[in-house]
């Protein structure tokens, strides 16, 4: 009897479906996007499942830092710079060349392609949901999106454009001078304003509402029973949530998950044992559209990724995260996990391409 009273209390507590966020810009994301929460039907009366679900509620708006607030003019400028290949030395590589909206803001390749068509050592990460990110890049070497945005432009192996040269190119175009003045009135065209504008645009790149979100909001028929079992596995037996935590399915942390390869990852920056071969936890949003997987594209499919975790990592090194242990998943459990992961994919969203200034 007391168990049922507890369950009813939990249901009453979590049926609201709201979330508190910090600094917010209105209008871009979410007002009215949430359906009415409903109490789950009898099939969902699993105490664990009910408690876990509260951790996956989408935020209602995008956070912007106080010193780089959203404005439509800033987002337009950032979008224009992001899609402009003239920011590269070769004049053919834009940010969007690797972060292609057609590949869920990645490039669909095992390893990124940089300047002179040379392969880079790591895979292109998606830019989805970076408004909520902490450190940037697979190894966390940038502290903010504003800082991150300039690094691939300057990198000799990526866009290979000295910042001074990039600023000269942009400043010579009347269309850009107008866009900068509208976005950052009174401020000069500088690496700082370029980085800030690109960061504003990147923060607006948010994964859309997926069937999983409908389920979290209370629509029990939004995902099938296999996916629901996969959700339970994700949170319990497979314990994926220990790293892929929250609505964005990342703890923004760094872990050696036993991926094959010699790359030291964050260990190159931080000489601690736990950081050797450690890479940033990626979001799982739209994951089935973003293969191949891992920081080096070494796993071709989501099934392969599940196999990696089921065997407790491909490489058993001293730095392997303690959370990575053999899972002993059955074939049905793997199918359920896969079914669950596919519910995180949102329907395709139209991307607005900018007219590039002359």
């Amino acid at each position, binding site marked *: 009897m007391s168990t049922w009273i507890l369950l009813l209390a939990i249901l009453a507590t979590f049926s609201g479906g709201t979330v508190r966020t910090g600094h917010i810009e209105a209008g871009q994301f979410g007002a009215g996007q949430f359906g009415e929460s409903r109490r789950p039907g009898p099939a969902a009366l699993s105490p664990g499942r009910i408690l876990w679900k509260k951790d996956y509620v989408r935020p209602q708006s995008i956070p912007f830092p106080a010193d780089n607030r959203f404005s439509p003019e800033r987002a337009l400028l950032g979008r224009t710079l992001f899609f402009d290949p003239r920011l590269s030395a070769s004049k053919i590589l834009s940010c969007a060349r690797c972060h292609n909206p057609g590949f869920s803001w990645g490039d669909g390749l095992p390893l990124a392609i940089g300047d002179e068509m040379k392969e880079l050592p790591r895979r292109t990460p998606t830019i989805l949901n970076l408004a909520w990110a*902490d450190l940037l890049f697979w190894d*966390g070497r940038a502290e903010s999106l504003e800082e991150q945005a300039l690094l691939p432009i300057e990198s000799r192996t990526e866009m290979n454009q000295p910042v001074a040269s990039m600023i000269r190119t942009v400043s010579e175009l009347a269309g850009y001078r107008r866009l900068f003045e509208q976005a950052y009135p009174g401020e000069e065209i500088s690496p700082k304003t370029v980085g800030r504008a690109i960061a504003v645009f990147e923060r607006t790149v948010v994964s859309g509402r997926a069937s999983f979100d409908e389920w979290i909001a209370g629509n029990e028929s939004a995902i099938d029973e296999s996916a629901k079992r996969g959700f339970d596995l994700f949170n319990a037996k497979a314990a994926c949530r220990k*790293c892929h935590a929250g609505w964005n399915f990342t703890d923004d942390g760094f*872990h050696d998950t036993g991926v094959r390869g010699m790359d030291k990852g964050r260990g190159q920056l931080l000489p*601690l044992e*736990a950081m050797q071969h450690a890479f940033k936890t990626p979001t799982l949003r739209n994951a089935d559209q973003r293969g191949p997987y891992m920081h080096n594209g070494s796993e071709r499919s989501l099934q392969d990724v599940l196999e990696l975790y089921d065997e407790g990592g491909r490489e058993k090194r001293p730095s392997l995260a303690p959370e990575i242990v053999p899972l002993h998943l059955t074939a049905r459990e793997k199918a359920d996990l896969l079914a669950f992961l596919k519910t995180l994919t949102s329907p395709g969203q139209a991307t607005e391409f900018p007219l590039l200034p002359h």
Partner: protein
Amino acid sequence: MTRRTFARIACAGLMFAIPGKPAEHQIIQKDRAFSQTAITIKPGDSIVFKNADDVTHNVFSVTPGMEFDIRRQAPGGSSSVPFGHEGVAEVRCSIHPRMKLLVTVKK
């Protein structure tokens, strides 16, 4: 709580308050966050870092002169770190870099 237990706790608190005696402070790691973001202690004091999460943490500092690394700490684990001299140490969890703590050590 009995009156005797209360008296014991009160006595323990007085012991910590004796001037000149090194004190032991506690910082809890829960929900991938430290229980506080800043703490001021005296030279010779120590901080016990307790992992109350169900994930591994790795508290460390690379502040020059105040470096330490308690290495991986399993859920439920505790580690005591002494702070011998004055300074300001930036403490983080290497696994979850959002976790930040500023330790100010001064007389």
